[in-house]
Protein backbone atom coordinates (compact mmCIF):
# COMPACT_ATOMS: atom_id res chain seq x y z
CA UNK A 1 0.00 0.00 0.00
CA UNK A 2 1.60 3.29 -1.06
CA UNK A 3 1.66 6.24 1.30
CA UNK A 4 -0.54 8.30 -1.02
CA UNK A 5 -3.57 6.68 -2.64
CA UNK A 6 -2.47 7.60 -6.16
CA UNK A 7 -3.85 5.76 -9.10
CA UNK A 8 -1.93 5.66 -12.34
CA UNK A 9 -2.94 9.16 -13.45
CA UNK A 10 -2.00 10.56 -10.05
CA UNK A 11 1.53 9.29 -10.41
CA UNK A 12 2.00 11.16 -13.65
CA UNK A 13 0.51 14.35 -12.23
CA UNK A 14 2.75 14.08 -9.18
CA UNK A 15 5.75 13.48 -11.43
CA UNK A 16 4.96 16.57 -13.49
CA UNK A 17 4.67 18.80 -10.43
CA UNK A 18 7.79 17.27 -8.90
CA UNK A 19 9.67 18.11 -12.10
CA UNK A 20 8.48 21.68 -11.81
CA UNK A 21 9.58 22.08 -8.22
CA UNK A 22 12.81 20.21 -8.77
CA UNK A 23 13.73 22.67 -11.51
CA UNK A 24 13.07 25.65 -9.28
CA UNK A 25 15.03 24.07 -6.45
CA UNK A 26 17.95 23.18 -8.74
CA UNK A 27 18.00 26.79 -9.82
CA UNK A 28 18.00 27.92 -6.20
CA UNK A 29 20.90 25.60 -5.40
CA UNK A 30 22.89 26.94 -8.37
CA UNK A 31 22.24 30.42 -7.04
CA UNK A 32 23.44 29.23 -3.63
CA UNK A 33 26.74 28.14 -5.15
CA UNK A 34 27.11 31.54 -6.79
CA UNK A 35 26.28 33.28 -3.53
CA UNK A 36 29.02 31.29 -1.84
CA UNK A 37 31.49 32.45 -4.48
CA UNK A 38 30.42 36.04 -3.98
CA UNK A 39 30.81 35.68 -0.24
CA UNK A 40 34.27 34.16 -0.63
CA UNK A 41 35.40 36.90 -3.01
CA UNK A 42 34.06 39.58 -0.73
CA UNK A 43 35.89 38.26 2.30
CA UNK A 44 39.04 38.00 0.21
CA UNK A 45 38.68 41.62 -0.82
CA UNK A 46 38.03 42.61 2.76
CA UNK A 47 41.28 40.94 3.79
CA UNK A 48 43.04 42.72 0.94
CA UNK A 49 41.84 46.12 2.13
CA UNK A 50 42.85 45.32 5.68
CA UNK A 51 46.28 44.07 4.66
CA UNK A 52 47.28 46.90 2.30
CA UNK A 53 46.61 49.75 4.70
CA UNK A 54 48.84 52.46 3.17
CA UNK A 55 48.08 52.38 -0.55
CA UNK A 56 44.36 52.21 0.13
CA UNK A 57 44.57 55.13 2.52
CA UNK A 58 45.54 57.72 -0.09
CA UNK A 59 42.42 57.19 -2.14
CA UNK A 60 40.02 56.75 0.71
CA UNK A 61 37.52 59.57 1.14
CA UNK A 62 36.11 58.24 4.38
CA UNK A 63 37.82 60.13 7.24
CA UNK A 64 37.36 57.72 10.07
CA UNK A 65 38.72 54.92 7.95
CA UNK A 66 41.86 56.80 6.93
CA UNK A 67 42.51 57.86 10.52
CA UNK A 68 42.21 54.31 11.64
CA UNK A 69 44.60 53.15 8.95
CA UNK A 70 47.04 55.94 9.73
CA UNK A 71 47.04 54.72 13.29
CA UNK A 72 47.91 51.25 12.11
CA UNK A 73 50.72 52.54 9.93
Amino acid at each position, binding site marked *: MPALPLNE*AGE*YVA*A*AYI*VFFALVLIYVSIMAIR*LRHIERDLSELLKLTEA*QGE*PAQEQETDHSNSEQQAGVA
Partner: protein
Amino acid sequence: MYGRRLRALSFSTAASLCLALGLVFFFAPLEADQGFLQKIFYVHVPLAIVALCGFVASGLMAIGYLRTGDSRWDMRSYVTIHMSLIFGVGVLLTGSIWAKGSWGHWWVWDEPTLVSFLIIFLLYAIYQPLRFAIEDPERQSRYAAVFAITAAAFVPMNFIAVRLSTAYVHPRVLGQTSNLPFKMAFTFLVCLAAIALLYVTLCKYEMTAKHTRGQLRALRRRLHSEDGLVGVGGRSAVASLVAPAAPALQMSPRPQAVPGRLSESS
Protein backbone atom coordinates in the same frame (compact mmCIF):
# COMPACT_ATOMS: atom_id res chain seq x y z
CA MET B 1 19.96 48.71 -8.43
CA TYR B 2 18.42 45.47 -9.54
CA GLY B 3 17.37 44.10 -6.18
CA ARG B 4 14.97 46.89 -5.32
CA ARG B 5 11.61 45.27 -5.92
CA LEU B 6 12.86 41.76 -5.35
CA ARG B 7 11.25 41.25 -1.98
CA ALA B 8 7.76 42.29 -3.07
CA LEU B 9 8.09 40.19 -6.18
CA SER B 10 9.23 37.14 -4.24
CA PHE B 11 6.35 37.40 -1.79
CA SER B 12 3.74 37.83 -4.49
CA THR B 13 5.23 34.92 -6.42
CA ALA B 14 5.08 32.66 -3.39
CA ALA B 15 1.52 33.72 -2.61
CA SER B 16 0.26 33.31 -6.15
CA LEU B 17 1.97 29.93 -6.57
CA CYS B 18 0.28 28.67 -3.39
CA LEU B 19 -3.05 30.04 -4.56
CA ALA B 20 -2.58 28.44 -7.99
CA LEU B 21 -1.73 25.05 -6.53
CA GLY B 22 -4.71 25.25 -4.20
CA LEU B 23 -7.01 26.07 -7.09
CA VAL B 24 -5.58 23.28 -9.23
CA PHE B 25 -6.14 20.55 -6.66
CA PHE B 26 -9.20 21.77 -4.72
CA PHE B 27 -11.17 24.06 -7.01
CA ALA B 28 -10.78 23.02 -10.64
CA PRO B 29 -13.17 20.21 -11.61
CA LEU B 30 -11.99 16.92 -13.04
CA GLU B 31 -11.96 16.93 -16.80
CA ALA B 32 -14.40 14.47 -18.37
CA ASP B 33 -12.03 13.06 -20.95
CA GLN B 34 -8.69 12.79 -19.17
CA GLY B 35 -9.73 12.92 -15.53
CA PHE B 36 -7.08 13.68 -12.94
CA LEU B 37 -4.31 13.50 -15.55
CA GLN B 38 -5.50 16.79 -17.03
CA LYS B 39 -4.04 18.61 -13.98
CA ILE B 40 -0.66 18.47 -15.74
CA PHE B 41 -2.15 20.99 -18.14
CA TYR B 42 -2.05 23.65 -15.41
CA VAL B 43 1.71 23.47 -15.08
CA HIS B 44 2.74 22.43 -18.58
CA VAL B 45 0.88 24.98 -20.68
CA PRO B 46 1.67 28.08 -18.57
CA LEU B 47 5.35 27.07 -18.50
CA ALA B 48 5.31 26.78 -22.28
CA ILE B 49 3.51 30.09 -22.81
CA VAL B 50 5.83 31.94 -20.42
CA ALA B 51 8.96 30.40 -21.94
CA LEU B 52 7.89 31.28 -25.48
CA CYS B 53 6.97 34.83 -24.49
CA GLY B 54 10.40 35.04 -22.88
CA PHE B 55 12.07 33.96 -26.11
CA VAL B 56 10.17 36.55 -28.13
CA ALA B 57 10.80 39.23 -25.49
CA SER B 58 14.52 38.50 -25.62
CA GLY B 59 14.41 39.27 -29.34
CA LEU B 60 12.80 42.64 -28.59
CA MET B 61 15.44 43.35 -25.94
CA ALA B 62 18.12 42.46 -28.48
CA ILE B 63 16.62 45.04 -30.83
CA GLY B 64 16.86 47.48 -27.94
CA TYR B 65 20.53 46.60 -27.55
CA LEU B 66 21.34 47.05 -31.24
CA ARG B 67 19.50 50.38 -31.29
CA THR B 68 20.97 51.91 -28.17
CA GLY B 69 24.22 50.00 -27.65
CA ASP B 70 23.30 49.89 -23.95
CA SER B 71 24.77 46.72 -22.50
CA ARG B 72 21.95 46.47 -19.97
CA TRP B 73 19.63 45.45 -22.80
CA ASP B 74 22.08 42.77 -23.79
CA MET B 75 22.15 41.50 -20.21
CA ARG B 76 18.36 41.43 -20.05
CA SER B 77 18.17 39.55 -23.32
CA TYR B 78 20.73 37.05 -22.08
CA VAL B 79 18.98 36.49 -18.75
CA THR B 80 15.59 36.10 -20.45
CA ILE B 81 16.88 33.41 -22.78
CA HIS B 82 18.64 31.72 -19.88
CA MET B 83 15.44 31.59 -17.83
CA SER B 84 13.35 30.50 -20.81
CA LEU B 85 15.73 27.62 -21.39
CA ILE B 86 15.32 26.47 -17.79
CA PHE B 87 11.54 26.72 -18.14
CA GLY B 88 11.88 24.95 -21.48
CA VAL B 89 13.39 21.92 -19.78
CA GLY B 90 10.31 21.90 -17.55
CA VAL B 91 7.99 22.16 -20.56
CA LEU B 92 9.63 19.24 -22.33
CA LEU B 93 9.71 17.04 -19.24
CA THR B 94 6.13 17.74 -18.16
CA GLY B 95 4.94 17.40 -21.75
CA SER B 96 6.67 14.09 -22.04
CA ILE B 97 5.10 12.89 -18.79
CA TRP B 98 1.68 14.01 -20.00
CA ALA B 99 2.17 12.17 -23.29
CA LYS B 100 3.14 9.01 -21.42
CA GLY B 101 0.10 9.30 -19.19
CA SER B 102 -2.45 9.94 -21.89
CA TRP B 103 -1.07 8.07 -24.93
CA GLY B 104 1.34 5.61 -23.37
CA HIS B 105 4.44 6.94 -25.14
CA TRP B 106 7.08 9.24 -23.75
CA TRP B 107 7.16 11.22 -26.95
CA VAL B 108 4.46 11.77 -29.59
CA TRP B 109 5.26 13.44 -32.87
CA ASP B 110 1.69 14.43 -33.72
CA GLU B 111 1.48 16.99 -30.92
CA PRO B 112 2.52 20.08 -32.91
CA THR B 113 3.06 22.46 -29.99
CA LEU B 114 5.37 20.09 -28.15
CA VAL B 115 7.34 19.27 -31.31
CA SER B 116 7.74 22.96 -32.20
CA PHE B 117 8.84 23.61 -28.68
CA LEU B 118 11.53 20.95 -28.98
CA ILE B 119 12.86 22.56 -32.17
CA ILE B 120 12.88 26.01 -30.58
CA PHE B 121 14.57 24.62 -27.49
CA LEU B 122 17.28 23.00 -29.63
CA LEU B 123 17.86 26.29 -31.42
CA TYR B 124 18.13 28.36 -28.24
CA ALA B 125 20.33 25.75 -26.59
CA ILE B 126 23.08 26.99 -28.94
CA TYR B 127 22.81 30.54 -27.58
CA GLN B 128 25.18 30.10 -24.66
CA PRO B 129 27.80 28.03 -26.52
CA LEU B 130 27.69 30.73 -29.20
CA ARG B 131 28.32 33.48 -26.67
CA PHE B 132 31.16 31.64 -25.00
CA ALA B 133 32.77 30.94 -28.37
CA ILE B 134 33.26 34.66 -29.04
CA GLU B 135 36.01 36.31 -27.06
CA ASP B 136 35.60 40.02 -27.65
CA PRO B 137 32.78 41.08 -25.25
CA GLU B 138 31.37 43.78 -27.51
CA ARG B 139 31.20 41.48 -30.51
CA GLN B 140 29.76 38.78 -28.27
CA SER B 141 26.82 41.00 -27.34
CA ARG B 142 26.29 42.09 -30.92
CA TYR B 143 26.33 38.58 -32.38
CA ALA B 144 24.15 37.30 -29.55
CA ALA B 145 21.65 40.06 -30.30
CA VAL B 146 21.57 39.13 -33.98
CA PHE B 147 20.97 35.53 -32.98
CA ALA B 148 18.23 36.50 -30.54
CA ILE B 149 16.37 38.56 -33.16
CA THR B 150 16.57 35.84 -35.80
CA ALA B 151 15.51 33.19 -33.35
CA ALA B 152 12.59 35.29 -32.08
CA ALA B 153 11.31 35.59 -35.66
CA PHE B 154 11.83 31.86 -36.02
CA VAL B 155 9.49 31.07 -33.10
CA PRO B 156 6.17 31.91 -34.87
CA MET B 157 7.47 30.72 -38.26
CA ASN B 158 8.33 27.36 -36.80
CA PHE B 159 4.93 27.09 -35.16
CA ILE B 160 3.20 27.69 -38.49
CA ALA B 161 5.33 25.10 -40.24
CA VAL B 162 5.02 22.37 -37.64
CA ARG B 163 1.33 23.02 -37.12
CA LEU B 164 0.66 22.81 -40.85
CA SER B 165 2.52 19.55 -41.03
CA THR B 166 0.36 17.91 -38.36
CA ALA B 167 -2.86 19.91 -38.57
CA TYR B 168 -4.94 17.32 -40.31
CA VAL B 169 -3.84 14.54 -37.96
CA HIS B 170 -4.54 15.87 -34.48
CA PRO B 171 -6.33 19.21 -34.13
CA ARG B 172 -6.60 19.11 -30.38
CA VAL B 173 -4.43 21.19 -28.05
CA LEU B 174 -5.49 24.68 -29.03
CA GLY B 175 -9.12 23.61 -29.37
CA GLN B 176 -8.87 22.29 -25.85
CA THR B 177 -7.82 25.59 -24.30
CA SER B 178 -10.31 27.81 -26.08
CA ASN B 179 -13.55 26.33 -24.75
CA LEU B 180 -12.71 25.55 -21.14
CA PRO B 181 -15.43 25.74 -18.52
CA PHE B 182 -15.17 28.80 -16.26
CA LYS B 183 -13.60 27.10 -13.24
CA MET B 184 -10.87 25.54 -15.34
CA ALA B 185 -10.23 28.73 -17.26
CA PHE B 186 -9.95 30.72 -14.01
CA THR B 187 -7.55 28.19 -12.52
CA PHE B 188 -5.53 28.22 -15.71
CA LEU B 189 -5.26 32.01 -15.69
CA VAL B 190 -4.15 32.05 -12.05
CA CYS B 191 -1.53 29.40 -12.86
CA LEU B 192 -0.36 31.43 -15.84
CA ALA B 193 -0.04 34.55 -13.70
CA ALA B 194 1.79 32.65 -10.96
CA ILE B 195 4.28 31.12 -13.34
CA ALA B 196 4.80 34.41 -15.15
CA LEU B 197 5.52 36.02 -11.76
CA LEU B 198 7.94 33.21 -10.96
CA TYR B 199 9.66 33.85 -14.27
CA VAL B 200 10.00 37.56 -13.62
CA THR B 201 11.25 36.96 -10.07
CA LEU B 202 13.88 34.47 -11.18
CA CYS B 203 14.99 36.81 -13.97
CA LYS B 204 15.33 39.57 -11.40
CA TYR B 205 17.33 37.27 -9.12
CA GLU B 206 19.61 36.38 -11.97
CA MET B 207 20.12 40.00 -12.98
CA THR B 208 20.79 41.06 -9.41
CA ALA B 209 23.32 38.28 -9.04
CA LYS B 210 25.02 39.19 -12.31
CA HIS B 211 25.11 42.85 -11.36
CA THR B 212 26.54 42.02 -7.94
CA ARG B 213 29.26 39.90 -9.47
CA GLY B 214 30.06 42.70 -11.90
CA GLN B 215 30.39 45.18 -9.06
CA LEU B 216 32.53 42.76 -7.12
CA ARG B 217 34.82 42.34 -10.11
CA ALA B 218 35.05 46.12 -10.50
CA LEU B 219 35.90 46.48 -6.83
CA ARG B 220 38.54 43.81 -7.07
CA ARG B 221 40.08 45.50 -10.11
CA ARG B 222 40.08 48.79 -8.27
CA LEU B 223 41.79 47.37 -5.23
CA HIS B 224 44.36 45.53 -7.31
CA SER B 225 45.17 48.55 -9.43
CA GLU B 226 45.57 50.61 -6.26
CA ASP B 227 47.99 47.96 -5.17
CA GLY B 228 49.96 48.44 -8.39
CA LEU B 229 50.02 52.22 -8.83
CA VAL B 230 50.52 53.62 -5.37
CA GLY B 231 48.34 56.66 -5.78
CA VAL B 232 50.26 58.04 -8.79
CA GLY B 233 47.33 59.84 -10.37
CA GLY B 234 45.72 56.48 -11.00
CA ARG B 235 42.43 57.90 -9.90
CA SER B 236 40.81 58.82 -13.20
CA ALA B 237 41.67 55.56 -14.91
CA VAL B 238 40.33 53.59 -11.99
CA ALA B 239 37.18 55.65 -11.78
CA SER B 240 36.36 54.99 -15.42
CA LEU B 241 36.80 51.28 -14.88
CA VAL B 242 34.48 51.22 -11.91
CA ALA B 243 31.70 53.37 -13.22
CA PRO B 244 28.89 51.52 -11.39
CA ALA B 245 30.66 51.53 -8.02
CA ALA B 246 31.98 55.07 -8.26
CA PRO B 247 28.93 57.16 -7.20
CA ALA B 248 28.75 55.45 -3.82
CA LEU B 249 32.36 56.29 -3.03
CA GLN B 250 32.30 59.86 -4.30
CA MET B 251 29.16 60.96 -2.56
CA SER B 252 30.23 64.44 -1.53
CA PRO B 253 31.72 66.08 -4.68
CA ARG B 254 29.11 64.83 -7.16
CA PRO B 255 25.84 66.54 -6.08
CA GLN B 256 27.52 69.92 -6.00
CA ALA B 257 29.16 69.62 -9.37
CA VAL B 258 26.19 68.32 -11.32
CA PRO B 259 23.62 71.08 -10.66
CA GLY B 260 26.26 73.71 -11.36
CA ARG B 261 27.00 72.18 -14.76
CA LEU B 262 23.31 71.91 -15.49
CA SER B 263 22.59 75.54 -14.70
CA GLU B 264 25.51 76.63 -16.86
CA SER B 265 24.27 74.75 -19.85
CA SER B 266 20.69 75.99 -19.45
